[in-house]
């Protein structure tokens, strides 16, 4: 009967489609079925059989329904006997799935505890969520050459083959840190420290996205985990520990520095930046931003993204070049940072012109009653095009 066939097709569509078509979409950056690290692999090893079992069970049910629908359609047969059930069958049908689930349960149990282990940690990184970007700081770990804390944002950089433990917390609302290729997600809850294991097999950039609804710009709160092989990582650490140099006198960048000192340093720290009187310029975001911090820009141009990993600092071609670089070359390309010609000037300028227009934020000064006048996000600074030119020139020097 065409009816029943169609019903079968429609009914089975869901799960079979899942099974068949999940693989059709290649290289979705956040694909949950393409693990790139041992932790994600563990999950994958567990979930694929579960999906398979679920699919099979589903097909059996659909087949049974379809058969019943086809076979027992009213064709004038007498009224069936008024039976009230077959306890044996029903008890059997209770025990069978119970056994099946018990089997799944055992493996689940093991995986849960495997993924919660912390005693094999080789490196820790503090991850702090804030509306709507991530801050990473690397506690002093001399084994990796981290003699002073490193602070960065947007892109988490880790050495390959190293068991990294993220210590997550949040400064405002609950966020969730998720790099699907490396592990499942874990919420960053204010007042608590949650940990998440992360380990990448190969160098590369792994995309992620905040997955706990965190307010207005939740949709654009993204993050990337960058895996570098150990040597490259050491180089990266070395670079990060350096202080920013002041641009040469007379350059556009130098003028940009003073714009930065006038405007940006209220919130954004650049390590090594000095005020006109020679004293260090220290940002005070806690006085201007409700959540208390703003991204540290000392090495902005070593990151490929800005504004909470929402936009690329690289032009499309350059980005593609880095992202799709083969494992061996990736480290070098990444460490090159954002060069003059690769800088995505369009988005950066748009951002400097009016940040809240690009990324919705609570930055309207007239509506900041509940936060005592503090912003949540970056306000529109009302910079002139001249100032923007200067600033871009300055920012380009922050490598």
């Amino acid at each position, binding site marked *: 009967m065409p009816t029943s066939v169609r019903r079968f097709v429609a009914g089975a569509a869901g799960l079979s489609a899942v099974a068949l078509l999940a693989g059709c979409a290649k290289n979705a950056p956040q694909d949950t079925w393409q693990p790139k690290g041992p932790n994600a692999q563990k999950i994958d090893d567990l979930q694929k059989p579960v999906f398979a079992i679920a699919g099979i069970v589903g097909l059996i049910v659909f087949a049974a329904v379809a058969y019943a629908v086809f076979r027992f359609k009213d064709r004038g047969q007498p009224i069936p006997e008024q039976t009230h059930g077959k306890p044996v069958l029903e008890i059997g049908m209770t025990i069978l799935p119970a056994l099946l689930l018990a089997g799944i349960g055992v493996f689940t149990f093991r995986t849960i505890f495997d993924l919660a282990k912390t005693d094999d940690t080789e490196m*820790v990184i503090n991850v702090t969520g804030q509306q709507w970007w991530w801050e990473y700081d690397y506690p002093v770990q001399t084994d990796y050459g981290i003699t002073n804390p490193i602070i960065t944002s947007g892109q988490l950089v880790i050495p390959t083959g190293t068991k990294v433990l993220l210590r997550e917390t949040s400064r405002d609302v609950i966020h969730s840190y998720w790099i699907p290729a490396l592990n499942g997600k874990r919420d960053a809850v204010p007042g608590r420290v949650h940990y998440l294991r992360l380990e990448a097999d190969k160098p590369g950039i792994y995309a992620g996205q905040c997955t706990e609804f965190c307010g207005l710009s939740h949709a654009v709160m993204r993050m990337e985990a960058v895996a570098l092989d150990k040597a490259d990582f050491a180089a990266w650490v070395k670079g990060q520990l350096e202080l920013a140099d002041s641009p040469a006198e007379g350059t556009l960048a130098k003028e940009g520095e003073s714009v930065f000192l006038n405007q940006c340093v209220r919130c954004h720290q650049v390590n090594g930046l000095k005020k006109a009187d020679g004293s260090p310029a*220290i940002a005070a975001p806690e006085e201007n931003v409700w959540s208390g911090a703003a991204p540290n820009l000392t090495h902005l141009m070593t990151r490929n993204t800005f504004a909470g990993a929402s936009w690329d600092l690289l032009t499309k071609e350059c980005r593609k070049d880095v992202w799709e670089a083969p494992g061996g070359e990736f480290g070098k390309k990444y460490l090159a940072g954002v060069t003059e010609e690769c800088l995505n000037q369009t988005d950066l300028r748009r951002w400097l012109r009016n940040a809240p227009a690009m990324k919705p934020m609570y930055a309207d000064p007239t509506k900041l009653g509940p936060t005592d006048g503090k912003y949540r996000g970056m306000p529109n600074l009302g910079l002139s095009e001249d100032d923007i030119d200067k600033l871009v020139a300055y920012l380009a020097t922050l490598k």
Partner: protein
Amino acid sequence: MFTNGSKYFIGVTGFSAVVLVIYVVLVDGAVGGAVALASIMLAVGLLAGLALFNRDGDVEVGDAAAPANAVPVGSSLWPLVTTLGIVAMGVGLITHEIVFLLGLTALVAGFVEWVIQGWSESASSDRRFNNAARGRLIHPLEFPVIATVGAGVIVVSFSRIMLAISKTTGAVLFTIVGALVLAGGVFFAVRPNLKKSVAVGLCVIGAVGVVAGGIAGASVGKRDQLVEANEEDHFAHKECGEEKSKYFDFNSEAKVSMRSNPMATIEFVDGKLQARELGLKKLTDRITVQKSNNISVIFRNKTEGEYRLTLFYGEKEVQEGVVEELHNCTQMIESGEEQLLTFRIDRPSIASEKPYKFYVPGVEDQSIEVVVP
């Protein structure tokens, strides 16, 4: 035509009139007495008129509606409550306003209840209906009020008891009272047909016990610990140096956040301060924490004696030219105890000349540096 009663009152009226005249004529300057006599005359005259008007209240033989035939009114609590209200008001006039107000409340409540009871009983001759009518009118007011008052009495009494006795005794008492309540409940449950008098008796014992305990507790006053803590403003202050307070929060480790993965554990072992960061096995003397974020660490004292962990985290200009050091600390804890310290540092390490650090007051050379990037 004149009934006997009216004759009596008319006579008294007349007598009063005569006396009034005599009095005014004969007694010098007796205005008060004259007024009194005139008042009596008027009042009795009025009564005379009334007696005359209703024929002395005599009723015809066979008048079933005669007042003499009226069914006695049911018993009532409200006269007593009203009285208590009036007396409390009177006492309140010379003691506390609150007593007066309570009295006024009781008076109003008693009066309202009385009036409604009276009204409802004459609503019809059907007692069940009358009861229902009264219930509908007054229960929506009565039940919440009684429940509130009852709960209030129990709460206040119990709180007075608990404030008066020591913490340990309090726990024991709670256990005992809980057990008794449970036992009572079981008793009632097992014997649902319990005699009313037994049930009332048990309830009375309980109520009297609680209230008497409450009164006793209130008269004893709060336990020393609370009084002292209050005097020392113990709940607000934190003495980051030597402990001056006798009482402090012994149970601080029971805080919720204690269970939510603190950033580090700092132990004071045999005179040495050492830190272990979350997720790392190695001991360290330097921990890195996020700026502008609530950070929690656990402090464990594993050295004989009472110690506290103190955090120095910079300086703050409290007024023009006056700079104050910022400190945060745990309570003094004994050896073997642990406590949580939650802090937030708003300025990065580079903003401070002296490094941020944890230390134990009174112990030199031992500190854990706190780095804020």
